[in-house]
């Protein structure tokens, strides 16, 4: 059956939906290139009177904004950007590596895992605020608090169910016969997995890595409670501009928000085809 065409009334409905979807992003990007005078103008200014990159510069050089007569940006965001990159990249690599082996192990060697969907779902359900309490207590006794090692450990543990079950769904899609054929040719099981299974799920591996990266890069609460002064991430830095004593630094904050958003939006488009599977822990396959 050929699908019906979209008529004009429905196209208008869709256009309205598109406007609702894109307007907040438009506003954020516009604020990021507004000079201080437009930041909180009354009535609100939709398009910057003279677009500028000063907000982005201020992120890395707090004094840059003084030329517009605004002072009091106390902290550069350099440390937060560096911290976010370090914590997300390291924890994503570790989580996906461990998850990959768990996925092969569970998919190929374990039997009684019928109740898995419920188990995974419940693992994701515990409010982070609740796990954060014991983390802070345990980490402060082994001096892992306010350190990247501690933060990375938390991120690995929190995203591990995610990478395991998403990768498992990709391994499940692969017929066992392929590995068995390789073993008949004299390969050991381990070698068959390393040289046959893993290359065949490359695409899934890439999508999983991107999704886990998105999760780690976006994480806010653990970073908030586990960081004092040594470590910082972009989301934590972002929440701090609201309380800055110099009033709210709308433009600078928006600039950091745009920087934080760019890699995710780009990455999200790359893995669009696997997004549904990832967000549902492999329960829905596209």
């Amino acid at each position, binding site marked *: 059956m050929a699908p019906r065409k979209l008529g004009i009334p429905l196209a208008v409905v869709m256009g309205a939906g598109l406007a609702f979807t894109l307007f907040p992003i438009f506003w954020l990007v516009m604020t990021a290139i507004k000079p201080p005078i437009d930041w909180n103008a009354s009535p609100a200014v939709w398009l910057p009177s003279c677009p500028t990159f000063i907000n982005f510069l201020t992120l890395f050089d707090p004094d840059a904004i003084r030329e517009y007569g605004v002072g009091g940006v106390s902290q550069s965001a350099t440390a937060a950007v560096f911290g976010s990159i370090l914590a997300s990249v390291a924890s994503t690599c570790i989580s996906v590596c461990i998850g990959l082996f768990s996925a092969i192990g569970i998919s190929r060697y374990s039997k009684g895992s019928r109740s898995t969907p419920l188990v995974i779902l419940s693992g994701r359900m515990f409010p982070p605020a609740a796990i954060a309490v014991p983390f802070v207590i345990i980490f402060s006794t082994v001096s892992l608090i306010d350190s990247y090692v501690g933060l990375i450990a938390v991120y690995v543990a929190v995203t591990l169910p995610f990478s395991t079950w998403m990768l498992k769904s990709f391994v499940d899609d692969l017929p066992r016969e392929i590995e068995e054929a390789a073993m008949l040719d004299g390969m050991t099981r381990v070698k068959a997995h390393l040289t046959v299974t893993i290359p065949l799920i490359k695409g899934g591996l890439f999508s999983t890595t991107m999704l886990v990266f998105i999760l780690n890069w976006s994480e806010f609460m653990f970073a908030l409670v586990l960081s004092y002064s040594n470590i910082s991430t972009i989301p934590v830095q972002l929440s701090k501009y609201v309380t800055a004593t110099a009033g709210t630094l709308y433009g600078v904050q928006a600039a950091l*928000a745009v920087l934080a*958003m760019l890699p995710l939006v780009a990455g999200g488009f790359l893995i669009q085809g696997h*997004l549904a599977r990832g967000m549902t822990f492999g329960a829905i396959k596209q």
Partner: protein
Amino acid sequence: MGKKNAISIGRMFTTPGQLVSLLVLVMPLAVAFYMSFTDWTPTRGSLAQAEFVGLENYRELLVWDTRFLEAIGRTLALSAICLCLEFLLGLGLAVLFMRSFRGKRALLSAFLTPMMVLPVVVGYTFWMLFQTNGPVNQVLQLLGMAGPEWFKDSTLAFAAVVITEVWHWTPLFFLILLSGLNAVPENPIRAAVILGANPRQVFWHVVLPMLRPVIVVAFVIRTMEVIKLFDEVFMLTRGGPGSSTETISLYIYKLAFNDFQLSYGAAAAFMVLVGSLLLVHLLLTPIKDQLMEDRH
């Protein structure tokens, strides 16, 4: 290469993951569980010396703590409202995407964008949009309405949270429902048409029932996310005015990290965990058999 060999390889592959989960998830949870039966706060020395108070924390929460009970009710109400709106909007959009039109791929990407934005950024962006002199009020004025102060009125602040959540997560419903619609087999639809069903009947009586498992999965996943909702509300309202937008996660966070009532907060967290386990179990019951069939 016997069976034994295979089992030991399987074990070897799964051990690192289990170790990490044990060390970094199970252990802290066990500590928190023990803690919830004590009256420990950081000012009272080490956890080992804390006094065991049995179910006292739990009793206090259920009997006396109206703020806790309100936060639970509010979180449930928020889930119900957001999920219904997200489901209806997502379903509508997914049905539109089953029609043919130009630029479908590009539009699909555009509609999925909100999902990719960091929750903290979403919170900040909507905080700007709902400022008293912000663009939302400007549009309302154009329509002849006085722009309210969104964050000073409890109903409006709650509405702002709902709108933010709906904007952020409708794309997920849309995506899940679209992949569900694309997977609906054509034969039952053809059969229904031959038997004289009109398009509306086909949709309600043939297509929608086949989407049921997909819909349940979407609802379960979003319910879990709303129970954990923290980032957006933290940026938007910090739970205010008063505690009128305080979600259960935000309340537990405040208990533990603003008031340092750690053992009390742990008890609250465990009640939420048990409650949400039951809730998800109930939600999954109708499709449990189907989920297991899918996993051969």
